[in-house]
């Protein structure tokens, strides 16, 4: 009898458990979440983040948890709008005649949160400090375009200088940047957090300053309770164009997205940056018009490892064939639950120079043509490929789906090559041990098409991990970089993107989307190209 009874109990438990997972959609957002209701300009709201990996030094922050906080605390010279156009923030103007020497004029009257003025020296000194490998800033290579970087941070041997010779203070509010080669779109790079100014107090104890940062941005630092929350408050003396419309932000720490979503529903957190896969099927129903589903400037690709025997002398037609064997439409809809959008080129949406259908038929699903192309190009050596991915990133499902699609369409055997986590995946890529193809992705650094082409496919580019090297592409990149103006450069990169199907440096899969949401407590929540909420625009209801 005991057996029968306990079976009944287990059955009851199972019913309860099923009920638990099924009834998440009880409360719905309703219609009152628009712009109605009085706004309290001094109230703070909370955002979901993880614990930042690094101290909050602008040039040391590379991952998203830290950069959303540093962006709130520090303003840069320029910023971008939603279409990728430049707007001036701390700079009055950034001018150049030859794309090689840029003259920066600062707006007058800007102050750091400790009351000291923001001067040309605040920028030049900060950049010199960050570029110096002695200070171990993770983003130091961002200064590599500036003249003198090779002396400050040589790949081998001892440094010959401690300051970048290309940076010169002209007077209190202006300085010049001389680059080692002309870059027509350099002003775009200046919007990245790495190029923040630092107050004099920073250098006394950089480690301490990383725990209690003093910036020049729309918010000032209040406190950081590690693994719990970071609090910032509106900086009232801020004169920039992006003055905060709320009293401040609490960056609340969550270890996983599921709990953050539960807290959003029970009103303990206001703004999410992402919805967990588990909640994606229900979040629109749960949140109503507070559910966010927008585009984001990041792209997922798979890249052949061109240093392997298999892909060393491959005919691009073969890669194009593999690309055409992938049914992007179906995979994004089913396996990825509509959280991605099929890619039509190599440049993501929301950046300057984005063009539709740049890849043409290279990304169209056409099994017959795919098979023919592979045959024409001499076939895949070994008739077998693998796609390396990191198992901790939720990639397994779509890698399997992509593999299935390729095998079904072309008969090329395809399996996933799983690495336990991202670190192991990166190590295999850095050591050039990828066996066949690997999963790759690119989130923009600055919203211009050059960032998605030059930084990935140039023979000596930092982001080029696949070993792709092509003289013609290099020549076209050089031509685009040598253009007279930003517009011309953008255009040349657009033309280059149109030509990429002839070279197939990687297989574009899909663009990322922002799937997020916010509470009834806030309104005007918008998301930028990086998929982060625009904090200063958020309004808190009374």
């Amino acid at each position, binding site marked *: 009898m005991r057996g029968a009874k306990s079976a009944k109990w287990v059955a009851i438990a199972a019913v309860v458990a099923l009920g638990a997972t099924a009834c998440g959609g009880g409360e719905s957002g309703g219609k009152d979440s628009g712009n109605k209701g009085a706004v309290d300009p001094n109230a703070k709201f909370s955002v979901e983040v993880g614990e930042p990996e690094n101290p909050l030094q602008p040039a040391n922050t590379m991952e998203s948890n830290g950069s959303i906080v540093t962006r709130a605390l520090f303003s840069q010279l320029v910023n971008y709008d939603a279409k990728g156009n430049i707007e001036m923030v701390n700079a009055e103007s950034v001018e150049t005649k030859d794309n090689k020497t840029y003259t920066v004029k600062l707006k007058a009257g800007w102050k750091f949160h400790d009351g000291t003025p923001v001067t040309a020296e605040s920028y030049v000194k900060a950049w010199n400090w960050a570029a110096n490998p002695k200070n171990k800033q993770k983003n130091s290579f961002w200064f590599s375009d500036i003249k003198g970087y090779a002396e400050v941070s040589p790949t081998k041997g001892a440094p010959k200088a401690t300051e970048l010779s290309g940076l010169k203070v002209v007077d209190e509010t202006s300085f010049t940047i001389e680059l080692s080669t002309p870059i027509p779109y350099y002003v775009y790079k200046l919007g990245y957090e790495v190029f923040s100014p630092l107050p004099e107090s920073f250098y006394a104890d950089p480690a301490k300053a990383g725990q209690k940062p003093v910036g020049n941005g729309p918010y000032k630092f209040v406190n950081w309770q590690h693994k719990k929350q970071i609090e910032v408050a509106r900086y009232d003396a801020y004169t920039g164009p992006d003055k905060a419309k709320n009293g401040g932000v609490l960056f609340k720490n969550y270890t996983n997205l599921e709990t953050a979503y539960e807290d959003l529903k029970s009103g303990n957190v206001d703004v999410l940056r992402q919805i967990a896969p588990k909640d994606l099927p229900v979040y629109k129903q749960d949140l109503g018009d507070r559910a966010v589903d927008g585009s984001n400037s990041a792209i997922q690709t798979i890249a052949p490892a061109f240093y392997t025997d298999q892909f060393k002398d491959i005919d691009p037609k073969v890669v194009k064939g593999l690309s055409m064997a992938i049914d992007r439409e179906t995979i994004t809809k089913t396996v990825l639950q509509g959280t991605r959008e099929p890619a039509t080129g190599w440049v993501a949406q929301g950046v300057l120079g984005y063009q539709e259908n740049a890849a043409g038929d290279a990304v169209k699903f056409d099994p017959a043509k795919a098979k023919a192309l592979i045959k024409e190009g001499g076939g895949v050596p070994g008739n077998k490929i693998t796609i390396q991915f990191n198992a901790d990133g939720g990639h397994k499902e779509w890698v399997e789906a992509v593999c299935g699609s390729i095998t079904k369409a072309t008969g090329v055997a395809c399996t996933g090559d799983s690495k336990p986590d991202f*670190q192991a995946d990166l190590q295999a890529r850095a050591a050039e041990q990828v066996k066949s193809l690997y999963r790759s992705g690119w989130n923009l650094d600055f919203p211009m098409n050059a960032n998605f082409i030059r930084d990935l496919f140039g023979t000596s580019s930092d982001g080029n991990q696949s070993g792709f090297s092509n003289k013609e592409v290099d020549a076209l990149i050089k031509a685009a970089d040598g253009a007279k103006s930003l517009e011309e450069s953008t255009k040349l990169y657009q033309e280059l993107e149109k030509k990429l199907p002839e070279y197939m440096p990687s297989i574009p899969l899909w663009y990322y989307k922002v799937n997020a949401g916010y509470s009834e407590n806030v309104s005007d929540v918008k998301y930028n190209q990086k998929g982060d909420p625009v904090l200063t625009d958020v309004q808190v209801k009374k």
Partner: protein
Amino acid sequence: MGRYVARRLLQMIPVFIGTTLLIFLMVYALPGDPVRGLFGDKGGSEATIAALRREYGFDQPILVQYFNYMKDMVLHADFGTQVASGRPVTEILGEAFPVTVRLAAIAFTIEVILGIGLGVIAGMKAGKLADTLILLFSLLLISVPVFVLGFIFKTVFAFQLGWLEPNVNDSMNMGELLMPAIVLAAVSLAYVGRLTRTSVAENLRADYIRTAVAKGLPKRRVVGVHLMRNSLIPVVTFLGTDIGALMGGAVITEGLFNIQGVGGTIFDSIQRREGTTLVGLVTVLVLIYLAASLIVDLLYAVLDPRIRYA
């Protein structure tokens, strides 16, 4: 007894060195480089990577790294520095342990009171309805996975009844910690109950109990002193090792309820290849295990004076 304690303490030294060395070797044998991992998809300047490697001693042979690490730990109580954040590991430990200690203490209290209480009731009424119900209840707790239990609790008590907060936002708030503590205690509670039940049911038939009853002692004294003292020996052993498990094994519970304690920190450190943090955490856990098992062994003598230390 003094000699016994001294010997046990001396025995801890090789155990301590052995476990830390093993963990150290295991972490460094994992593929993936913590310094390169910092840079993600985009790579970094070689000079900066080399400078970071030098700072953390990754350019030295593994045994030298281990020796330096242990030297700092034993001589200066310095557990090293986290690669990514540059913060001292002692600070990280200082944040993680108090949270988990609080959670584990509540869970342990629930486990002891409810577990032993239910076990005694079941044991005294062996074969009766109460016993059957308690056995079924404990079977249910053992067989339902922790995360399922967590979801049921959250749905029922947080979302439907609205009595409790679904997640822990403030680890100082005992009310918020209650639900995760119950979930954490659930499985152990069932084991404690079952162990107590068996032992009580068995000892009820022992000669000394019959003698005590025959002497005319009141029932309270028979159960409270004569029966409990002997029945608790296996339970105490289990409770002792369970302290360690509660401190370290709460990865799932902590993740489920967003508690930033030891479990989550261990998980994070493995993912980020933060060897120093991981070894530090495990070292403290090893010390807790060692201390708990020493206390358990000493408690034996209190419970049963016939047990002597040699």
